[in-house]
Structures are given as C-alpha cells and as structure tokens.
C-alpha cells in the first residue's frame, strides 16, 4: 500500500477513535452531571401498555398536554415497543444520549440501578414528588435492590389472579374456585375431558415461567437468591416448586402438552375459547373480552397456595408485576423531570392511566377509587396489598430469568414429549442454570 494511502487510513482511524474515546470528543450530553439547562422540554419513553403503539399515544397525549398547560414544559413522547426497549435503554445508558424520563419493567430495576445512569430517589427526591408513603409497599420493594436507594418509582401495578370459566366449573359440578394447589389439581383432573383441559400455561414464555416458579418456590419456603445475592436455584424448596409447576403437564396432565410451546399469549386464547377452564394471568380481563368472553362468563380468585389463605411469607401467591418510572441522571431538565414524575403519580393521573390500561394504581389513595373495585380488580388489588412479593431484586435478575425460565421451558418440553420429569432431573437442570450464573 502506498505511503499516502497508509497515512490517510491512519488519519481516519485516529479521528474516529478520538470520537469514541472520552475526553477528546464526548460532548456535554455524555457527561454524568445533569442540570436544568433545558427547562422547557422533556423526552419521555413510554413502554407499550395499551392495545397498540398508536393506542398508547392516543391515551398519553392528552395527559402530556395537560402537563404542558400546568408547567409550560413540552414532553416529547416516544412509545417504545417491548421488543426494543431494553436495547434502546442499553444505547441510552452506554452513550449518555437518551430520554429524560422513561418507563422500565419493574423486574429490571435492580439491574439498571447498578448502571448508575438513573437518578436515585432518596428521601429528599421522594419528597419532591409527594413522599414515599403514598406508594404501596410491595410496589416500592420492586424499585431497586433492598437496602439501596431506589432508582425508580412505581407507575402501574399488576398481580396474578386465577381466572376460571364459570360454565365449565358448573358443568363439572365444581361449586367454588380452588384455594389450594391440591384442589386445583383435583378440579383440573375433573375438568380435563374430551379435548378440554383444566389449565392453560404459557410454557415457552420464559418470563411467565419464572414468575410462577418464583411463587411456587416461595410457597415451599425457598428463594432463588440468598440474602447476599448468591443464587440458590438448587435448594430443595426451589426444586420442589419448579417441579410442582412442570407437573401440571408432566404428572397431573391437567394442561395440554401443546402448551409447552406457547409464547404468544395462546393460553389466553385457549381460556377464552373454552379449551381450558383455568388460567393464571395478570389482569387478563380486557384481553379475554377482546376474544369474545363476557365478564360474567369468567370468575377471578386469588392464586392458590399450598394450604391456608394467601398472605405474606410462605403464602405469597403472586409476584409484584408492573411498570416503574425512572429519570436519567444526566437529564438537562432534572427539575422538570421530577415535576413530570410527580404529575404522572398524582392521584388524578394514576386513576386515569391505570383505569385506561386495566392496571392497579401503586399509589394507595388512588387505588381506593371505586373504578378499581370490580370483582377482578378487587382480587388483584388485595393481592398486591397483602400477598405479593417482588421478584429477586438482584443485578443479575435478567440472567436469572433467562436461565431459570429457559430451564423450565426445557423441562416442560421434556414433559410434553413424554419424557419423565423427576425431582432429580429438575435439580440437575437447575444446577446447570446456577453454574451458568
């Protein structure tokens, strides 16, 4: 290569390297420190909560306009689909170029907390948005690792309930929904006849699997992580719990083998069309109605426990599901961002938005609103208040979901293919997942 060409290439490499390396090029936006140099605008990344991106925009835009009227701050909204959200946050975190305010899945809280990119909500900051005391404790517990300053506030909350088909129950002579798992399996067996099944599970959906495994493990007195954050996937209780879930297909056969490949909400469809009599889901109501099921055709009960009634400790019957709101530390409109968080968590907005999305307000006073007291939401609201616990708030949560959820998916696939699933095989599979952490 000629000398000149070599120099030219060298120059291009040099210039671009300068551009990526810090200190030489990185403009102000990559800096750490936020401020208030752009007090008139905010960028907000909303997650997709409604029936479509456009639907979300339609629901949020009037609220953002109201906020602008109140404060004079224009909010630029982008609804980010779930398939892109984590990658976009990755981009924003690594480059320092992102929104001011954004929604995150509450299970991501601890993981994103450790990046140091999000604004910590210490008591002083919480005071600016109306105080910590306004929020439901269980929802607050899913805003970051325990003992650390949270980096998000709860926005929408959800919990699992047991949905059952009233007519199928009546036809099978079952008078009330099961309260324990033994009852559920018994009822399930009675309901499993003629191509219909007792229960529908979303077996290939990694997250769903983990949510259920978490509850089952809790009910067996186990946790997937110990107090210092080390994985304990193979504790007897965790193995028991996972096996109990897999057994719906493997041993009890109250769920169809085909459920092992569901990951596109097919279980909702199966329930709505009467192919399955029970479903464990978060606020499935609006979706069921969309599939043609009427509210009086299904009942909602708390998710069963091993014995007794749902409550704290071993009688947890749901994970705390929901969406949190976070602020990027390097926002150039920190005051405005906090004003916006305050606005979105105000009683009025909480009622409106949670009402529109079919979720429960994590703000206690808003949750008392009669709008959230229909039979379905009452069950979910009580669950959040009394018997729901957050998924492990550890930095490696996403890895945990991936590995344990994937392991359960494999076990369910084994079960569906007719291979035996034993305590030992469950334990082996979880041991492998644990080692991969």
């Amino acid at each position, binding site marked *: 290569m000629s000398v000149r060409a070599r120099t030219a290439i060298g120059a291009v490499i040099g210039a671009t390297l300068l551009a990526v390396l810090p200190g030489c090029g990185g403009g102000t936006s990559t800096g750490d420190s936020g401020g208030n140099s752009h007090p008139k605008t905010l960028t907000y990344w909303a997650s997709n909560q409604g029936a479509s991106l456009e639907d979300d925009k339609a629901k949020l835009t009037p609220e953002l306009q109201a906020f602008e009227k109140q404060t004079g701050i224009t909010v630029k909204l982008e609804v980010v689909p779930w398939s892109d959200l984590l*990658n976009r946050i990755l*981009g924003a975190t690594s*480059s320092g170029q992102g929104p001011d305010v954004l929604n995150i899945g509450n299970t991501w809280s601890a993981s994103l907390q450790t990046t140091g990119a999000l604004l910590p909500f210490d008591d002083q900051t919480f005071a600016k948005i109306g105080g910590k005391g306004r929020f439901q404790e269980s929802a607050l517990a899913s805003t970051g690792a325990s003992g650390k300053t949270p980096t998000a506030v709860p926005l929408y909350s959800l919990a699992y309930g047991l949905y059952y088909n009233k007519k199928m129950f009546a036809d099978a002579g079952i008078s009330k929904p099961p309260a324990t798992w033994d009852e559920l399996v018994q009822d399930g067996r009675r309901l499993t006849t003629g191509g219909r099944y007792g229960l529908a599970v979303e077996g290939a959906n990694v997250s769903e699997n983990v949510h259920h495994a978490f509850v089952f493990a809790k009910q067996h007195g186990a946790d997937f992580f110990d107090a210092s954050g080390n994985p304990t996937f193979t504790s007897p209780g965790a193995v028991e719990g996972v096996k109990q879930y897999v057994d719906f297909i493997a041993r009890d056969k109250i769920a169809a083998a085909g459920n092992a490949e569901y990951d596109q909400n097919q279980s909702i469809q199966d329930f709505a069309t009467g192919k399955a009599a029970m479903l464990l889901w978060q606020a499935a109501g609006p979706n069921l109605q969309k599939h043609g099921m009427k509210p009086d055709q299904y009942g909602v009960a708390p998710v069963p426990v091993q014995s007794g009634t749902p409550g704290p400790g071993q009688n947890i019957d749901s994970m705390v599901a929901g969406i949190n709101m976070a602020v990027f530390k390097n926002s150039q409109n920190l005051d405005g961002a906090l004003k916006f968080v305050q606005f979105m968590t105000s009683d009025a907005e909480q009622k409106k938005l949670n009402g529109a999305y079919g979720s429960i307000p994590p703000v206690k006073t808003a949750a008392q609103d009669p709008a959230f007291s229909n039979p379905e939401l009452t069950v979910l609201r009580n669950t959040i208040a009394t018997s729901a616990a957050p998924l492990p708030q550890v930095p490696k949560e996403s890895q945990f979901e991936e590995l344990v959820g994937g392991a359960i998916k494999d076990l369910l696939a084994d079960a569906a293919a007719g291979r035996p699933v034993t305590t030992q095989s469950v334990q082996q599979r979880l041991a492998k997942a644990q080692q991969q952490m």
Partner: protein
Amino acid sequence: MPDRSPTAPPPSFVWTGRIVLTLLTVFSLLPVYVMLSSSLKPLRDVTGAFRWIPDHLTARPYVDIWRTIPLGRYFVNSIIVATAATGLSVLVATFAAYAVSRYRFRGKRVFTITVLSTQMFPGILFLLPLFLLYVGIGNTTGIALYGSRGGLILTYLTFSLPFSIWMLVGYFDSIPRGLDEAALVDGCGPLRALFRVIVPAALPGIVAVAIYAFMTAWSEVLFASVMTNDTTRTLAIGLRAYATETDVYWNQVMAASLVVSVPVVAGFLLLQRYLVAGLTAGAVK
C-alpha cells in the same frame, strides 16, 4: 439469451425438471399462501386450527394495519434507507471491483482479504462499538448518525459492500479484457471504459448485487432495533409492533407484510429481465 442447446433435451430430463420446479414452487409459495389466507381472516380464526380455506373472509386487517402502527412512515423509511444504501453500495462496489479486476497495485491482496474478512464479523461483536462510534462522531462533528436514516444507510451500504465487491470482481473478471482494452486504445478514459463497456456487459451481475444489497438493508433487524427511533424506524423491526403487550395482531402482520412486499416483488419482476441480458447478448462478438 444463451439457450443451452440447439437440440432439445430428452423427455426424461424435461419431466424431472417440471416436477422439481413444481415442488420448488409449492415450497416457495406455501408460506405465502398461509400469509395471504391469514391476512383475510378475523383474528380469532387465525389463531384457531389451520384450515386450507378460510371460514370467514374479511378485508378488515388491510384497513386496520395503517392504524395500529405508523405503517406508512415505516415503509417510507425502509424504502429510503434501502434504496439509498443499494445505490451507494453498488456504485462504491463497482469502483472497487473495477480496480481489483483490472489493475495491479500494491496492497491489492491486503484489500481483498480485509474486505472479505469483514463478512465474518459476527454482528453481535460490533453492534455496540459501532453504536458508540456513531454517538461519538455525532458529539464531535455534529453529524447525527445515531437515530438517523443516514446512519442506517451508512451501516447497510457497508454490510453489503464486501459481498458486492467480491461478486462484481468475479463478473468483471469473466468479461474479456479485450473489450475494455479496445476502448482504452480508442482513447477512452478508464472511467468511461468502466461505464461504457464493463458496466453494460456486467449488468446481470450488477442487478444481482443490487437486489442483494437492497434485501440486506430491507430485512436487517438487530442494528435497526438499537439505532432507530420512532421517526426513523424501519419496517423490518416496525412490523414487530403488531405484537403488543396485550395482543398479537397476526392477521395484520400478514396483511402488512404482503402490502409492503408487493412493490418489492414488482421491482424484482421489472429487474429480472436485466438478469438475463448482458454479456453474451451482444458484447462479445
């Protein structure tokens, strides 16, 4: 057009050929049929048991697709990005391939090997660095590559470049040197020789490369999901938005895919006659 042989092939060959082509047609079109029939069904029928003939026909999805997501905008983005990336990629590759095919110079080997080896890079390896590079360039020079169509065009044109260069070198090599040598002797400049003689002769190859470059940009998923925002999002990832938090609009996904594919297939139909023109059609003799 070079027909294979002036004498007709034996019937056994013809019949094997017909059977193979029929099977390939079925293989190619079966998913397209499923797509088409699903796009004409109401949502609950789509997720139900498969039927060859839809029970209820509806054109509704074709209306709804425009409202569920900003399909029109995604489509325009995709067309702009893919077309620009294709045009630039073909142009740049033509220059490079001409140099490699017709000149001897120091560094040729290094160049060809480097270019080919870039095809080996796993996308995962350089997604994050490339993204950081774009943001850095933006901060330093003010050229917004991150989140812009320009950034995507730059990325995709380079993705298709290595293969385009290699393919074109192959096609150019197979054009007799006598052709452009004659042009050079006649006093043409090298660039004129390239565009007057070589490009027309290599047209099938260039069209094949262009189709390839277009499709690379048209269906890339991974980089687009990090590098675009609401206004610059392309179809390839935009279509995923039909799967929302509460619902998956299967029939609309299918309808939208068919709608956006029509112009592309039409483009293929138009271009495919250039695939068979070219060299032997007149240039050789």
